[in-house]
């Protein structure tokens, strides 16, 4: 369609706006935000006559590239180190996408501005596109990559695995609780506007550097829909801001959403990009550098800061704190190390780090080797079964961490760990902000104000609880992370596919009993618990025990 006819078409479809005359639509989802009927904002109506052919054309390119990749034997050049992590990533991401679709009707109910509903409905269908196109990409990997284990049982694994549960925040958080908190602030304003850049732009670039040009093809195609979604969020945010009563809630939700996105997305994507790559060119950007560019400069400085003049309270302190976590406190390195420590609880293979990797880390993060080098040397030493146990059960100067009740990533920056008794249970949190999220934000009152629509953090949030007192062979079998010979594990701490080098359930059988840190914590006396806390915050970096002398 020509630009002129598109403009006219835009104008014309405004005539579809509906003012109920006989029945008001049923309002299923609640919010504590209030919207006076604000002046009409950019209506963002998508003209489907141009939308469908445009998306179809994008599809042609994606599917054409997929055929080409298979004909061109792309998998002869794909790095296994990289593709193994896709078993995790692609098991998670279709759910956030489809959840984004499911969250859109929540906004119909909460935002009484019909001009916005059309854009939200088109976002809904975009998200159906994203979810299924990603399930399809994973299927292609399963069919063509050397090791289908972990792809073939992807969605069962993901729903069972603690990493999957961490990822599910980035899905359930969109569809539950206060409709605006969930579908607008957490999903659109923070996840889509800030963090999809690392997901859909930075990560595909890394995939290409590892011989996989299909991930970029699919994810760039996905990302190209994102600007419309960002506009949806922006329009809603401006409407929310026009009502003074909303400002306290906006401040709360931005703090929660920012911090949770940082905790979850930086943990996962940071690990994929830094530890899942074989590309160690010194001039390729590190995750920290990408973060600084995409999130700090593009999002925080260019998008968020200008909103301050409309009365938005920006969590400057949390932006700086997140940067500090990444740059000074080694957040991504700590997470990657934890993933590797617990390789046996997952469903993909984690490659060890080599001298070339060490050199790159030292160059990008000066001081890295002194903190993490020894541990990764131990990881490689213990990689193939040779009479010893998996690294988690060996003495390598690493204390198994407690989990954060809120973000469910373990409390890895040990000095930041805080503890509180909440809802009758002692809980550990990775950081004060995660404590605040659970103990103060997700509650029916907030700073003395009634917030009856705010959601709750529920579920068995500590994965280890389910397997308290189990032998690890039974844990792995119960989760189903076993290959088709009935004993070789799906996960391995190396990439060698020689069956003699692979760990089996028999190796797990002789390991010590697994215990839940949280169950243990709740069995302690007050004095023991305080001693535990005092010790924990002196641990690290790299999970080292607290120094004995201090």
């Amino acid at each position, binding site marked *: 369609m020509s630009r002129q006819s598109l403009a006219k078409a835009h104008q*014309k*479809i405004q*005539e*579809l706006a509906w003012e109920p*005359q*006989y029945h*008001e*639509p049923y309002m299923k*989802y609640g919010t504590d935000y209030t919207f006076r009927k604000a002046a009409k904002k950019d209506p963002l109506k998508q003209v*489907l006559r141009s939308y*469908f*052919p445009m*998306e*179809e054309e994008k*599809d042609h390119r994606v599917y054409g590239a997929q055929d080409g990749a298979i004909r061109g034997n792309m*998998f*002869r*050049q794909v*790095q*296994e180190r990289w593709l193994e992590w896709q078993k995790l990533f692609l098991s998670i991401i*279709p759910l956030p996408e*489809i959840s984004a*679709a499911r969250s*859109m*009707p929540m906004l*119909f109910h909460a935002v009484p501005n019909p001009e916005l509903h059309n854009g939200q409905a088109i976002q*809904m*269908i975009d998200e159906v*596109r994203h*979810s*299924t*196109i990603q*399930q399809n990409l994973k299927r292609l990997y399963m069919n063509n*990559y*050397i090791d*289908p*284990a972990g792809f*073939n*049982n992807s*969605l069962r694994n993901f*729903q069972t695995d603690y990493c999957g549960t961490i990822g599910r925040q980035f899905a*359930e958080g969109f569809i539950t609780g206060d409709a605006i908190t969930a579908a607008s602030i957490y999903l659109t304003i923070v996840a889509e506007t800030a963090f999809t850049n690392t997901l859909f732009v930075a990560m595909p670039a890394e995939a*290409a550097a590892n011989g996989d040009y299909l991930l970029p093809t699919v994810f760039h195609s996905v990302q190209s829909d994102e600007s419309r979604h960002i506009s949806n969020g922006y329009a809603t945010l401006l409407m929310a801001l026009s009502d003074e009563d909303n400002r306290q809630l906006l401040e709360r939700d931005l703090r929660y959403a920012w911090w949770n996105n940082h905790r979850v997305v930086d943990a996962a994507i940071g690990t994929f990009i830094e530890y899942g790559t074989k590309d160690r060119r010194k*001039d390729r950007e*590190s995750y920290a*550098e990408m973060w600084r560019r995409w999130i700090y400069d593009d999002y925080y400085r260019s998008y968020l800061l200008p909103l301050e003049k409309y009365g938005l309270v920006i969590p400057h302190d949390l932006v700086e704190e997140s940067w500090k976590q990444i740059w000074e406190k080694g957040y991504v390195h700590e997470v990657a190390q934890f993933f590797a420590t617990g390789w046996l609880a997952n469903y993909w293979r984690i490659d060890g780090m080599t001298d070339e990797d060490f050199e790159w880390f030292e160059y*990008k993060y000066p001081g890295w080797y002194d903190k993490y080098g020894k541990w990764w040397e131990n990881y490689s030493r213990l990689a193939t079964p040779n009479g010893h146990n998996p690294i988690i059960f060996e003495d390598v100067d690493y204390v198994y961490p407690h989990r954060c009740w809120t973000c469910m990533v373990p409390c890895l920056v040990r000095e930041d760990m805080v503890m509180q008794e909440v809802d009758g249970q002692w809980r550990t949190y990775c950081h004060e902000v995660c404590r605040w999220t659970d103990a103060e934000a997700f509650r029916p009152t907030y700073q003395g104000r009634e917030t009856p629509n705010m*959601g*709750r*953090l529920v*579920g*068995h949030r500590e994965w280890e*609880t*389910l*397997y*308290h007192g189990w032998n690890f062979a039974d844990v792995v079998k*119960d989760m189903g992370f076993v*290959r*088709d010979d009935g004993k070789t594990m799906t996960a391995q701490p190396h990439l060698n*596919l020689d069956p003699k080098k692979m760990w089996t359930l028999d190796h797990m059988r002789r390991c010590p009993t697994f215990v839940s840190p949280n169950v243990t914590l709740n069995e302690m006396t007050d004095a023991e618990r305080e001693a535990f806390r005092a010790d924990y915050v002196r641990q690290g970096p790299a999970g080292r025990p607290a120094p004995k002398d201090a």
Partner: protein
Amino acid sequence: MTTTESNPSAPTERSVPKPVFTDAEAGAKEFPDSSPAARRYNYFTPAKRKQTHYEDVTVEVQPDPRHYLAQGWIYGFADGTNGYPLHWTKLKAWGVDEPEPARGVGTGAMHVQNWPAHGWHEFRDPNEEWEQSLYRYNANVVRQLTQNVDNARHAKAFELWTPNWIRFVERNVGAWMHIEHILGLYVFAANERSGPTNMHNTAMAVNSTRKIRFAQDLALYNLTLTEEIDGFDGTAHVEAWNSDAEWQGARKVCEALTAVQDDWGEAIFAANIVFEPLIGELFRSNLVMQAAAGNGDFVTPTVMGAGEFDYAQRDLRWTIACFGPLAEDREFAAHNKELMQGWLSHWVPQALEAARTMQPMWSQADHKPPRFEDALDRAKSRFAGICRDLNLDTPEELKQ
């Protein structure tokens, strides 16, 4: 801060990653899980012998705590509900009254033993809608329509229209866009958070998209006519929709569909099983499609026809596949049948009353279509056939 800035000694040629031969393709080595049998999604049981592409991209994406969700849902609403509650419709599928696994300290994952745990998971969209089918189908429709309307314009086809027919199209064909828009957004999209499985919710989302598209097809067609036909009033449809007596009945029922309280099943059932055949097809097929040719209009039927096809070939098809088996559910057939019969008794009289208020439209054109009563009879018998397909009794109220 980028490394290129902080690293002045970097080589001046472009730095690109070097391809490396890794031999990481299927079949390169033999090891546990390397066989072709391991190359299929193995966490669900397909509906037929061979699992379909549609199932692969759809089934289990939306979790169910009765399957594998070991740690349970992790976010809840204020009232404690979470995930995709099965009670967001009063319909029931076998197995739903079985308790959810009670997980806790040392229980393990408690994976499902008797897949699929309950009957809701047996539903498959017979249209097998996912990303590819969805865009292919709708892109074809809009391309076809654009071409038809362009051809008509070049052939000066609109010059044959009589003034009465112009009034008919600007008001009545125009008014119909509002119904599609409201149903698309506030019935189908509004309920696609509420279904029990990914299969249900995606089917609703895709149904919604077709309706929103059709509403826009009609709006843009209306725009073309405004530009092509002298004296065609492009805003008359708003007035007709807001105040013409013959539209107020249909509008009332259409709005009532958006107001169904907390039951996605009833909303979708009432829309696709009752409203569409008794009002939608009555108007689109039994009036517009019948009347147009006699009044020299060969274009409007192609636009309306696209919406007809959406409903008859896609929307109705998945709806029957969704609700039909519930009337024969191995555990709750009687419950569901009674419930759906109740919905029929509630919605059919409203639809018929609305249909009757539309009667004056049958005499507005110069060249009259078949009589209203015949049109309504046809719609009724179509509806009765749908009831049979669903194993429901044709409701008494249809005789009204």
